[in-house]
């Protein structure tokens, strides 16, 4: 496979994942805004914007954090290069460039999703349509992954696409968790105290983990439990441990196909060993923020090594 095509597939799925995570975060913020007071809602929108590193761009345009401004900025603002609309556009552009490396079904799923989303986001999104927008974006992710799983050859291209998915998902979850960290802080000194459950819920909702968490931890809700769930629980498909275990499989598959291991495999092994040895106590000892910083750096280094190992660029 061409290095350029591998590059395109890897990033195509990173963009898709980022769009989907933006939508999930936005959904949580939207829910928060409906159930909380204005000040909390404003803080929630600020953190949503900041989680994806968009604060400077947003504040250059808007002086305040209102829901309408925030969700339109995240979804469709032409000045926001990381908007959902821009991401989905980039997914389709990459898919066109890699057209002969993906199945027809996958292309159609992407093209149809793009048509639907770009149609929906052609005009500012009113409050009544936010839910629909989020739902369509999530469904696009499901349709694209489904088409890929059901129709793509298990060749290099498939593994580059999946690797992109998990690199990005782990990165997004780490960013969101880091951003919400301050919400968890107070409870660390008062283990067992009754922190507002609405805020707990919010942390979980941001990564669509609220139901899964409740299901696994009936009644037991505390900071440790949540962090453990989002970082270490490899049953939850958006946890850091799950993403890294999946990424490791993809990189191993690539190494098998190529008959040789590269720097990415070595870094991956290092990072995986580190996570396997981690306990929730260890994480809190080093500080969640420090842990997440270290993790996103390691995750980024793996992504760079993949690009290098497989000649994404000349």
């Amino acid at each position, binding site marked *: *496979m*061409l*290095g*350029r095509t*591998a590059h395109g597939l890897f990033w195509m799925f990173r963009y898709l994942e980022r769009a989907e995570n933006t939508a999930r975060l936005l959904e949580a913020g939207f829910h928060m805004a409906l159930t909380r007071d204005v000040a909390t809602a404003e803080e929630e929108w600020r953190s949503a914007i900041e989680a994806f590193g968009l604060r400077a761009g947003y504040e250059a345009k808007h002086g305040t954090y209102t829901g309408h401004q925030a969700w339109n900025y995240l979804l469709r603002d032409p000045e926001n290069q990381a908007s959902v609309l821009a991401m989905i556009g980039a997914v389709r*552009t990459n898919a*066109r*460039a890699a*057209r*002969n490396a993906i199945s*027809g079904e996958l*292309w*159609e799923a992407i*093209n*149809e999703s793009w*048509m639907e989303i770009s149609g929906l986001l052609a005009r500012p999104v009113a409050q009544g349509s936010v839910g629909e927008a989020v739902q369509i974006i999530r469904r696009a992710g499901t349709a694209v992954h489904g088409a890929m799983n059901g129709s793509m050859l298990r060749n*290099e291209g498939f593994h580059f696409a999946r690797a992109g998915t998990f690199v990005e998902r782990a990165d997004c979850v780490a960013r969101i968790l880091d951003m919400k960290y301050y919400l968890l802080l107070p409870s660390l000194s008062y283990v067992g105290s009754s922190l507002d459950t609405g805020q707990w819920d919010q942390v979980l909702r941001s990564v669509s983990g609220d139901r899964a968490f409740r299901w696994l931890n009936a009644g037991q809700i505390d900071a440790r439990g949540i962090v453990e769930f989002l970082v270490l629980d490899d049953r939850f498909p958006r946890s850091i441990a799950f993403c890294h275990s999946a990424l490791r499989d993809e990189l191993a598959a690539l190494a098998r196909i*190529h008959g040789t291991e590269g720097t990415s495999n070595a870094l991956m092994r290092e990072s995986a060993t580190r996570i396997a040895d981690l306990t929730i106590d260890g994480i809190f000892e080093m500080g969640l923020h420090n842990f997440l910083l270290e993790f996103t750096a390691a995750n980024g280094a793996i992504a760079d090594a993949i690009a290098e190992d*497989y*000649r994404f660029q*000349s």
Partner: protein
Amino acid sequence: MYEADGKFDEMRTVDGSVRPAYRDYRHWYDQQESAFLSRKHREAEIAFRRTGITFNVYGEQEAEERLIPFDMVPRIITAAEWRRLTRGIEQRVRATNAFIHDLYHRQEIVRAGRLPARLLHDNDAWLQHMVGFTPPGEIYTHVVGIDLVRTGPDEFLVLEDNARTPSGVSYMLQNRETMMAMFPELFTRVPVETVSDYPRRLAKSLAACAPVAAAGCKPTVAVLTPGIHNSAYFEHAFLADQMGAELVEGSDLRVVNGRVAMRTTRGYEPIDVLYRRVDDEFLDPLTFNPDSVLGVPGIMDVYRAGGITIANAPGTGVADDKAIYSFMPEIVEFYTGEKPLLPNVETWRCADRDSLAYVLDHLEDLVIKEVHGSGGYGMLVGPAASKRDLAAFRRKLKAKPQNYIAQPTLSLSTCPIFTRRGLAPRHVDLRPFVLVSPEGIDIVPGGLSRVAMRKGSLVVNSSQGGGTKDTWVLKD
């Protein structure tokens, strides 16, 4: 009421009966509910949007990708008509290939006084680098598209020879796919020749032209595209996909150890046959346009050393110049020793003083074309032109007569299209696709039928609002 306004209609005879080619189709059509047909008409557009079969239009930001209108009534050709056509096309393509080889070698045709030397010197597509060089298998025109028009039951004329990079074959294939998906029962009732193996035949034909460097192993074929912003990108990707070939861009390629190689995830791997959809001048910045980023620095040296086959060969464009076109009957006769089976459209070369005088006198009745133009741009259709356009062309003709040819306004045949009011006749042309290799000339039974969607219009180019139709060659 279906009333043909042209001289010849593909479906209907003058006395109102249905021609044999359309008998089965028309029978089926008359049994369909009009609501059903209208629904299918809408479905077709949705299908094309969904599969992303679009073409890009330069300079239009809003509608960066447009659909070429698709009409769901097939253009139908009988087996006997097709046999006759293919004989004529084969003869013409054989002559064209021999002609190009001669031009870059001894130029016998010029020595024999059958072609003025001026036509070579004035020709923008002439490539000095090709002089004395023979490409692998002596093949220049690996893929050719011959544009045909019809003016009567037995009158097919060649309007244009596309010997550089003919496009549109993906529409031939997708139009058929769409028709089969929409009207499966039609194909059980009408015996139609298949076109779907074109990509396989293309891959085979290209592989048969592999260079010496590839001897002994299965040749690696790649399609070179200028990139996703090119108007024909969809076709490049489609053909690469269907052939199982890599779709490469200039930035993927470099010369490594005397071969043109592509950057894969495993390192650089050599390419044997490059089906390039990039124009000559962008092919090699070291040899041609130094600013080009679409090509490969040094590819021409590799080519001349026998390290790669470039399809079509650089410099092939000399043969599809419109001034050369006017000599095609002589060219066919010179290289095949036979009378041309397919006639040209009568053509006045404005470089000749007498012709120019005639053309200026009859501007209102003629079609004027730029010698190097294509795609329906820079063209004057006399009968449809305003007084201002006519005056402007009169000035251009007087200033640079050698840049123009003139042809009569042909009464192109009409073919039914589906409209809200039922079937209506529109003018069509036909572009069959021809594959050339040392193993022979291969013509897929079908082609691209382009249709003017507006009533009375004679311009079928997609860039000018023309549409396409599925083209059926009937089995015996």
